[in-house]
Every structure is written in C-alpha cells, then in structure tokens.
C-alpha cells in the first residue's frame, strides 16, 4: 500500500484517497507534428524498471492533480511536486541521485 502526500493541500494518506494518472511530463504533439511524434505522444511510454515520474490526482481530497517520483522496483516515493512544472525540482532529483547514481528518465538525469 502506497502512502502519498498531496503537495497542494498537504494531506498525507494511503493510496485509496488518490488516483493514478499515468506518466508525467508528456509533451503534447498535435497538428503539424510527424506521425512518429504523434504515436509516441499517444502510446509510447517509458515504463522504466526503477525511477519513474507519474501523475496522481487527490480524488477524495482537494481534487488537484500533482506529480510524483517513485521507484517502480521498490515502490518507494522520492517526492511530490505540483503539476505546473516541466521538470522535477532539484531537491527530488538529488534525492534520487543519492539512491540511484547515474539514473536517467527521458531528458532528465
């Protein structure tokens, strides 16, 4: 059972209060993009064994979307941060680096 902390309202609770929303930091490709870009945006996912960034929603709470960094191999959370960002905050990246030196996830490392 996962324990999450909503960065919007500060409530800490187990996962039934939240809803998983898939991969984070997807870059949208719309009209004018190539077929490969559009396919990647719709279907291709990182699906890493290890460090992963994902979206969650505090459905039974404040209702806000937020982002989280998690290890899919151990289910450990590295941190939670607001959805209005294009990159994980440095302190979360540092925390991951301490555990997984040399990690990378898409363009982040």
């Amino acid at each position, binding site marked *: *059972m*996962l324990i999450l902390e909503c960065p919007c309202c500060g409530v800490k609770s187990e*996962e*039934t209060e939240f*809803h*998983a*929303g*898939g*991969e984070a930091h997807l870059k949208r490709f719309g009209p004018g993009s190539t*077929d*490969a870009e559009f*396919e*990647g945006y*719709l*279907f*291709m*996912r*990182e*699906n*890493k*064994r290890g460090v*992963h960034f*994902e979206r969650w929603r505090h459905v039974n709470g404040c209702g806000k979307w937020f982002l989280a960094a*998690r290890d*899919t*191999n*151990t*289910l450990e959370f590295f941190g939670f941060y607001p959805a209005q960002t294009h990159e994980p905050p440095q302190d979360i990246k540092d925390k991951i680096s301490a555990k997984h030196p040399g990690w990378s996830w898409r363009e982040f490392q």
Partner: protein
Amino acid sequence: MKRYSVFAVAREALRYHTGWERAWRSPEPKKKYDVIIVGAGGHGLATAYYLGKNFGITNVAILEKGWLGGGNTGRNTTIIRSNYLQDPSAAIYEKARSLYETMSQDLNYNVMFSPRGVMMLAQTQHEIRGYQRTAHANSLQGVKTEFITPQRVKELVPIINIDGPRYPVLGALWQARGGTARHDAVAWGYARACSDMGMDVIQKCEVTAIRTEGGKVKGVDTNRGSIDCDKLGGIVAGNTSVLTEMAGFRVPIESVALQALVSEPIKPCMDVVVMANTVHGYMSQSDKGEMVIGGGTDGFNNYTQRGSFHHIEETVRALNETFPIISRLKMLRQWGGIVDVTGDRSPILSKTPVEGMFINAGWGTGGFKAIPGSGWAMAELMAKGHSPLTEEFSMWRFGEGKFIDESVAAGVAH
C-alpha cells in the same frame, strides 16, 4: 526421454520409484544457437516447442532469469477461453484453446485440461448488449458460445445469487468448451518436450545486453557469458520494456501488477468458471477444492510482483454479493504478477526495428489461455517471417491506427 504411462507408473512402483529421470536437462549454454528465446514461461517454451515440431529448428536455447514458469505462467488463475469480439483475437485464442484439448497427449504430460465451461456474467444492460454482440461475432468466427438466461446460470451454478440487489445477474456469455488447466504443468510439459528435441532450457540465466551489428541481432550477453544467435525472440511479459530498451527501441507497453488469491479448500461446489467483469472478479474451484479468485490491476506502473490490498478487498467484497457462500471462507494465499498492458489491450507478436529480433508481448491480463496458439503463431513468424495469425498483431499497428480493440469488448478481466 522415457514416456510417462500407466505402465511406467506400475514399473516404478515395483522398484521403489528409483527409475524416474529428470524431466529436462540443465545444460551449460553453448557459444551459439540458431535461435535464442528470452523467457522460459509458457509462451517462450511453446514458441520453442513449435519451432522444433513444426519447422525442425532444434538448435534453440531458452534463457530464463529465474526459474521455469516462475513468472506469470505460475501466477495466473488458469482460465482458458476464446470468446473474443475481434476476428484476429478469436483466431489466435481459439487456435490456443483447440491445442489445449490435445496438449496432454501431444506432450505426453498431464496438463489437466478441464473443459468445464466458462461463464461471463452480464450484470448491467450494457454488458447484455456487449455479450450478445460477442456471441454473434463468435458464431461468425466459428467459436461456439451462446448467450444464456439467468435461470440457466442458476442451473449451472447453484451457489450463485442472481437477484442482486447491487449486481443482479441478467444473463451470461457461455463457452462450454472453455475451462482450466494446470498452469505449472503446461510449462513443465513444454520444457520436457523441448529438452527431448535437443533444445537447451537454461535457468538462472539473465540477459543483460543485446548485441547488434548494422541493425541486425548478433547475440546476447548474460550473467553466464555471451551467446551468439541468428534469431532472437523476446518473450518476457512484464519485462518487455526493459528488454527492448537493451535493443534500442520502445514499445507501447506499460507494466502493472495483477493479483489473485485462493481460499482454504472446501468440498466441490462449483464446476464451471465464472467471470464477473463489472465487479472485476472471477472465480473457479481448483481440483484441491480451493476457490481461485482473480482481481483487477493497479493503476500505476509496478515491477514488484506485489499489488495493492484494496483491490483484493474490492474484488472479494463484490464477489460476496454474487456468491454469499464465500463470505465465511478464509483466504489462504494472495500473490501478484507483472502484466504488460498495451494501448488496445491486445498482444504484440511482431518483427522489430532490429533485424532478426522478434517480440511476443503485451498479453496483459490474459496470457495463459493463449500459450499454445501464441507459441504456434510466434514459431511460424520466426521461422518463415510471416504468419496469418500474427499479421494484425504488429507493433506498428498503433501508429497506423489499426487497433484490435478488446478493451471495450472484453472489459478488464481478460
């Protein structure tokens, strides 16, 4: 290989069972094989078996990082059915189901296939329409299914409560020749047959890298040395993304945990398989008497083979209403497996951007029932470069928009 038979049992009984031999050899890996299959689960072993049996390719190694059948092959709820909506799915699943019928004889290994009948309950108006549509599609595909009334459901499953109130049974899609089989025996039987054909089943051998040269596969590096090959089959279910990353391409797959549980053994009370897709639960009774219950998947990516408890809770809570008899059963064991789910909930049996490398993946929550058909089709694809059964299941269908959309047709339970 010594054949198993009633005479063998009698002979061994007379000499204190000293004459049984190991079912398969445990050889050291050779330097080179014609074909390497990564993953000795049901699908990988079946692929190797049909490569040998149908195409005479026996210089094959099947590499397994853990132990044989220790992944999803030994973690499913053993349900076999082929009542799918889309034609390509029905073709490959029905091929598989028909091969299960004679598998024990073909492999000389008792896989305990029990065509006891599979019932998918319709508990909403939407499901009635969906299953009637599937029944019509099945009759066009040559798959024998029928839509039955609640009264017939009650006759077939006396322990069921069809009156609701929350989830009344409004009918069911019934496939009389569906059923169950012993999942470990399927892996063991194929491994024994492969070993007998001269193939090497190598356990505790983890692939760490895939070597390519000029866009063509050359071999793999493993924790037991590097091995060359002409063709490579990646058949690793939940770890497909990890394997394809080694080969340098991506697949439209996400890995999530799917859970199941069994109760304490009780006297025989239900001799069919019942699936209730509205409430994400399915149940059958094993030969040992345990009620085998399967649940839904988690919403988040996961490689731990552990799922969230609340899914178990939801499944059991919902099944309690439909099967009041289980409310006082103690549950004995619960476990999870990592399933590889694609965008349209249909598998990928395909060539890849790397020449000579093939993948068989994305079976998601419903791979066990497909094992022999998947192996049959994959072997043909690897040997000949194309197969009528795999044509629609290419990994490029997502970019082309040619989905085989079973997620709407089959619901969550697959």
